[in-house]
């Protein structure tokens, strides 16, 4: 592999977007979680649920700030590093980003402040409305991004005139063939990741025998939720897989490390794919299973990587392995959710230190799984920016190599620093825990101790 500007641009974009996606992943899930918890509080009037909301809102605020800071870079990188791509397809993809920014902007300007700092200033119903609108905003933002990315995977709704992309139907662009399933898959990934992040934090409190009144309902709730979400996510994953097979059979071939076109292809559990020699080493496989998974027939035909020239093949190693990481973690989550349910039936959900330790240990895995999923999707899309239409080499900017090296190095250093600070304050918030309701302390005082308080339109 030659180190050139295009490759470094891709690494840089992958690094910055991979960094960015961590924060929205947690925030979409937390927004939904907060909407539910605040709803329960409104319905029951039980103050425990209010305190749950207040505690997790702090983490939501901290994470939201990181999402904003890391998001700015991406909008510009599309131009600086992939200028020719924007020149040709910007008229399609740019519009989706405009709507994404508008919705994020609108939400941030209007309702986030009320949600974070308005506990004392507006009534509970209005506050709940703000929470719901913020949740809606995060989902709408996610739809914008997933729609844009899905259009790059399965482009639709346009014609090409003199090298420019002209949209015929925005409906077909926004809801392109893979958009909705991939959007739902991402939302479910967020929810599942958040479930296990919350489970990890709650488990830590349970292990330390502190803040039990908050930790127990959270712990119980997220496992009930995970029991539903994990199977749904696996089903959605299957649907995404079918779309991939239908529209991007070579991505399927890379995921399965399948070199030659065959019927009844085996599912490879372990292998070291070698792109140069076009074969796998140390292969362990189950006969016919890959065909069953991808086509839902035992003898379904899978197209092999060798059916196209080398230059048109995706990155096999990354696609193959990251897919397995993603799926592995997904099933692990399902098993843990089932195990927790079993414990619940036996009445032992709250007296198993081993389960607590396990939950703390696997708390970050959801993020890993999400990143792995994205790497699968994106390296499997190669060598295309827009599938079968714009090749990566036509889409990348021509920039002096050393400039990209400098910017990449700077970004890695800067992101390393700010991520360390994020974790530092995150753990500080967790250690400090949900504040116990002091008689003289107003709700807003508790909340205003959060970082990124400046997001408050009426902060003090």
């Amino acid at each position, binding site marked *: 592999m030659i180190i050139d500007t295009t490759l470094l641009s891709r690494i840089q974009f992958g690094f910055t977007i991979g960094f960015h996606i961590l924060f929205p992943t947690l925030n979409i899930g937390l927004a939904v979680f907060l909407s539910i918890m605040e709803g329960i509080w409104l319905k029951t009037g039980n103050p425990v649920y209010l305190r749950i909301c207040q505690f997790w809102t702090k983490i939501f605020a901290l994470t939201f*700030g990181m999402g*904003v*800071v*890391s998001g*700015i*870079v991406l*909008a*510009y990188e599309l*131009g*600086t*590093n992939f*200028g*020719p791509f*924007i*020149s*040709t*397809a*910007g*008229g399609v993809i*740019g*519009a989706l*980003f*405009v*709507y*994404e*920014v*508008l919705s994020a*902007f*609108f939400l*941030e*300007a*209007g309702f986030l402040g009320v949600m974070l700092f308005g506990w004392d200033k507006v009534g509970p119903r209005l506050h709940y409305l703000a929470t719901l609108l913020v949740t809606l905003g995060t989902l709408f933002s996610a739809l914008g991004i997933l729609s844009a990315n899905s259009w790059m995977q399965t482009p639709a709704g346009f014609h090409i*005139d003199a090298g*420019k*992309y*002209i*949209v*015929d139907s*925005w409906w077909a662009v926004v809801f392109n063939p893979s958009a909705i399933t991939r959007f739902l898959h991402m939302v479910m990934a967020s929810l599942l990741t958040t479930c296990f992040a919350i489970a990890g934090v709650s488990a830590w409190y349970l292990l330390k025998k502190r803040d039990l009144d908050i930790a127990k309902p959270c712990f119980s709730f997220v496992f009930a939720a995970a029991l539903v979400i994990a199977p749904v996510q696996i089903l959605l994953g299957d649907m995404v897989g079918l779309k991939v097979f239908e529209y991007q059979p070579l991505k399927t071939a890379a995921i399965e490390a399948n070199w030659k076109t065959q019927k009844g292809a085996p599912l490879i559990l372990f292998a070291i794919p070698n792109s140069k020699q076009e074969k796998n080493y140390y292969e362990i496989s189950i006969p016919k299973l890959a065909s069953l998974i991808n086509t839902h027939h035992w003898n379904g035909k899978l197209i092999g990587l060798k059916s196209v020239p080398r230059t048109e093949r995706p990155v096999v190693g990354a696609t193959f392995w990251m897919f397995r990481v993603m799926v592995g973690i997904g099933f692990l989550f399902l098993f843990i959710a089932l195990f927790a349910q079993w414990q619940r039936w036996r009445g032992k959900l709250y007296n198993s230190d081993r389960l607590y330790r396990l939950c703390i240990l696997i708390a970050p895995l959801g993020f890993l799984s999400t990143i792995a999923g994205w790497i699968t999707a994106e390296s499997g899309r190669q060598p295309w920016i827009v599938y079968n239409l714009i090749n990566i080499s036509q889409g990348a*900017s*021509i*920039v*002096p190599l050393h*400039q990209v090296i*400098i*910017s990449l190095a*700077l*970004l890695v250093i*800067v992101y390393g620093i*700010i991520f360390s*600070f994020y974790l530092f*304050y995150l753990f500080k918030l967790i250690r400090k825990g949900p504040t116990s309701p002091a008689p003289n302390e107003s709700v807003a005082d508790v909340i205003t101790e959060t*970082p990124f*308080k*400046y*997001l*408050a*339109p009426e*902060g*003090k």
Partner: protein
Amino acid sequence: MFLILTWATIISLIIMTYVLLDGFDLGVGILFPWIKQSEFRDIMMSTVVPVWDGNETWLVFGAAALYAAFPTAYGILLPTLYMPIMILLIALIFRGVAFEFRFKAHKSQFIWDIAFAAGSILAAFIQGIILGTFVKGYGTHLPLSHSAYHWFTPFTIFTGVAVVCGYALLGATWLIIKTDGFLQEKMFKASKVLLPLVAFFLVSVSIWTPIVEPQVMHRWFSLPNFYYLSPLPIITILIVFYNFYCLQKKKERLPFILTIGLFVFSYIGFCISAWPYIIPHVLPVWEAAAPPSTLKFILVGAAIILPILFIYTLYSYHVFRGKVKTIIHY
């Protein structure tokens, strides 16, 4: 054509809104090194804490709108400005987290002071560099030919320093409104130094550009353009003098408003010089625009959300009106 003109206007407005809004909060950071006392630094920062990130969001919106409405220009222009944009983004990140962490830090506060000041100065300087590169132009035809460091020339450094001074003036006059006592006194003094400097930069660039660019010369000095356009520099000069007079008289609100006026008129002048090019002398707006279907589609969203945003922005400044006397505490 109507759609293209509308979008050119909207994007000009977005850029101007960004320059004015982020201009003053970057300006506060630029002035940081001249105020040594920690308690005054706290107050300076507190005046922009509630608004700065909303201000910066206009930068993201500008990018998204530009590449949806004028994708060709965005795709050609940004790679040529690779390094300046990357440095700008990193400067803004550092400055952004400085807001976050400065009030939390105790011993390490000086680190965030440096990050805030250096980030602000660097961001303003780079924006000036980008402005200068744009004014300087890229020759006359596509594909653009330029060296790797074409953006780093005496002229662009000159415009870089000019923007730093301009933002500092915005920041100083903003602080005159928001503070009193010692700090306000300091800001009156700073403004009286900065205003003549800014005037000098404006005059220099205004003389320099038409001499070097015949098209700009033609735009301003041919008849009848000259008659229509001459009020613009005259008003700008009047604003400078009136602003200085207000600073002498210790008016609190007018200097900020007049400085905004100065920026607006300079910006209009810049737009008149550049029109109709989105990449100077190479690509006019109508050749860079996205197809009508795209322009229509995004106009729907912009028409709904932008007015709400403008009203909301005004409202939030209304909420935060008045002097900041104590720290906005984290």
